[in-house]
């Protein structure tokens, strides 16, 4: 194994070692703060290693391919895992029972995400995906004494297992047809005509991966799981997990030009349009912030699927920019929910009712949530606008008018519910039974994370050159 490869592996190894260290620490003595500190330290080291690995790409083995895409996805996964770990600290302080296992699961899932984002082989794909999902079952059901959390965990477990079965069956059929397990060779064989079994295999794989991305019509689990799961687990599900799966899908689509198989882009177009419209329309009537964010993520990945359909030219750069914007905005929004919920026991304070008049109590936190909502809606001067701009430019250049139309229509519908949340924040506060962030939230690490993320949303929205430069360098 060459030295370059060791460097490319090092983020994954560091995170895995941190997970084992955290577990051994738990076995010796339960110290919540120490566990968080170890996890955060390991993740920061892994982030540094990921930046160092920039110098050695592209390297790879038969299983993993460390290219720019994997590196960018890895950076996003590690950064959002880091944010989740810091935000979990305050959130879990109020949790009755064992708190420390959460970080072990979080770190294991991060390793799975890193492997998935870099995999170029069906075996790496499957193990990465399972390693990403398995800890999520535990994280979602972490507060198992609350009905909703347990429900979310079991729902995700069963549906995700069914999706994995679809994926595995699809892989088996494709392998039977082509005899290949390398993703690039598999995609290239699509051009030679697949026959019935191969088509069925591709279809089953799309079902499996579409479930993980919660693309319509495989989205039914999303709102319930988002609502029920503990805040940090949902945040991880909405950011790191989706980034990893999307990076893998993009690698598949970019690996070979589909000259003869134009049915696949057509199929993806239909899925993308359905996700944009259904996601946004269903979000309109929701009165729970986490559910709204769940539907919003369905819609956002519908928009992003334009990249999969076009899969040429600026596609990789667009993905980089859009994923950065999506992760930043989502982290800010969920961060506020976690901070508001973390102070008290019981279910997360996600009902919009709790946010009525938040501005009069917590003006800065409200500003963060407002910025996040505006960014998700794609208002100029926030980072969300840059991402949408890239997507529309890509769609127009490739003359995919249906998709561009869907994006514009979806964004128009989306404005309504994003602004509805924003307006709620500034209404007159209700009298009794409110839940609130702790007074010293700004002094805590979690508060700092939320403020930094919101600052980045504005900063990169006004001056996007660094983000675009990063995406451009890493996309090739």
């Amino acid at each position, binding site marked *: 194994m060459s030295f370059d490869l060791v460097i490319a592996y090092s983020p994954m190894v560091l995170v*895995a070692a941190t*997970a*084992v260290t955290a*577990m051994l620490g*738990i*076995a*010796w*003595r*339960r110290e919540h703060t120490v566990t968080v500190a170890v996890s955060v330290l390991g993740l920061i080291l892994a982030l540094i290693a990921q930046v160092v690995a920039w110098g050695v790409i592209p390297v790879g*083995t*038969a*299983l*993993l391919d460390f290219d720019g895409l994997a590196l960018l996805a890895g950076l996003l996964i590690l950064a959002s895992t880091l944010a989740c770990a810091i935000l979990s600290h305050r959130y879990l302080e109020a949790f009755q*029972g*064992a708190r420390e*296992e959460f970080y*072990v*699961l979080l770190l*294991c*899932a991060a*390793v*799975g995400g890193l*492997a998935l984002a870099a995999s170029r082989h069906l*075996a*790496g794909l499957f*193990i*990465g995906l*399972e*390693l990403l999902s*398995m*800890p999520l*079952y*535990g994280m979602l*059901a*972490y507060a*198992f*004494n609350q009905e909703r959390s347990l429900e979310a*965990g079991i729902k995700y477990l069963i549906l995700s297992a069914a999706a994995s079965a679809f994926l595995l069956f699809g892989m088996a059929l494709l392998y039977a047809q082509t005899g290949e397990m390398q993703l690039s060779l598999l995609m290239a064989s699509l051009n030679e005509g697949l026959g019935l079994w191969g088509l069925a295999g591709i279809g089953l794989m799309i079902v499996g991966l579409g479930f993980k991305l919660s693309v319509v019509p495989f989205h039914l689990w999303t709102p319930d799981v988002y609502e029920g799961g503990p805040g940090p687990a949902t945040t991880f599900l909405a950011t790191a997990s989706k980034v990893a799966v999307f990076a893998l899908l993009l690698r598949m689509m970019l690996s070979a030009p589909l000259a003869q198989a134009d049915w696949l882009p057509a199929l993806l177009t239909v899925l993308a349009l359905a996700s944009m419209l259904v996601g946004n329309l269903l979000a309109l009537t929701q009165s729970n912030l986490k559910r709204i964010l769940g539907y919003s993520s369905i819609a956002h990945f519908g928009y992003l699927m334009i990249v999969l359909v076009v899969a040429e030219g600026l596609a990789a750069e667009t993905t980089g920019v859009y994923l950065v914007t999506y992760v930043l905005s989502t982290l800010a929004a969920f961060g506020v929910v976690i901070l508001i919920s973390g102070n008290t026991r019981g279910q997360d304070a996600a009902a919009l009712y709790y946010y009525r008049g938040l501005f009069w109590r917590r003006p800065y936190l409200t500003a963060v949530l407002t910025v996040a909502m505006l960014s998700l809606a794609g208002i100029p001067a926030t980072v969300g606008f840059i991402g949408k701009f890239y997507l529309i430019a890509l769609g127009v250049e490739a003359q995919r008018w249906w998709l561009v139309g869907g994006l514009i229509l979806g964004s128009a519908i989306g404005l309504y519910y994003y602004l509805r949340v924003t307006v709620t924040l500034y209404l007159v506060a209700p009298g009794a039974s409110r839940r609130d962030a702790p007074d010293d939230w700004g002094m805590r690490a979690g508060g700092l994370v939320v403020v930094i993320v919101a600052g980045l949303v504005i900063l990169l929205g006004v001056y996007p050159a660094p983000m675009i430069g990063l995406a451009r360098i890493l996309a090739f």
Partner: protein
Amino acid sequence: MEFAFYLSGLVAVLATLGVISNPNPVHGVLYLVVSLVAVAMVFFALGAPFAGALEIIVYAGAIMVLFVFVVMMLNLGQAAVAQERAWLRPRTWLGPSLLAAVLLLTLIGTLWLGDGGMLVQGEILRARQVGIILFGPWLLVVELSALLLLAALVTASHVGRQRQQSPDSTANREVS
């Protein structure tokens, strides 16, 4: 060797149908064991004796042990004995036995016709080759699987915890 492959495959499909169509879980498990053994036969026919042996040891073996545990945990009394007697009717055991007999005949036929090394096509994949692949190029997959099992274990230990338990006693339990 082809007849062994197809016959075992057929037995596996029929036995699995028996698993999902049986209202009684214990009867379903009888079919399940036959199905697992049939899949192991398929592996043998394809020239992967190591995978076949693992299938028998891990799946059929582990499932059987699991059910022994379940039976041990149940409080068996007179009613259970009566129940057992009622279960000993032919229509309960005839199906699985027939399928198992087909498998046995296939196995005997294969052995009769020649040595055990025959297979559908390709080379025989013995434990040695499997090990070389697993701990050579596929080492990463093995490590990731280990992490996957760790995560599953931590999840199970957390969710399976008693509701009202002080953190200290759970900590002790984890050490042991």
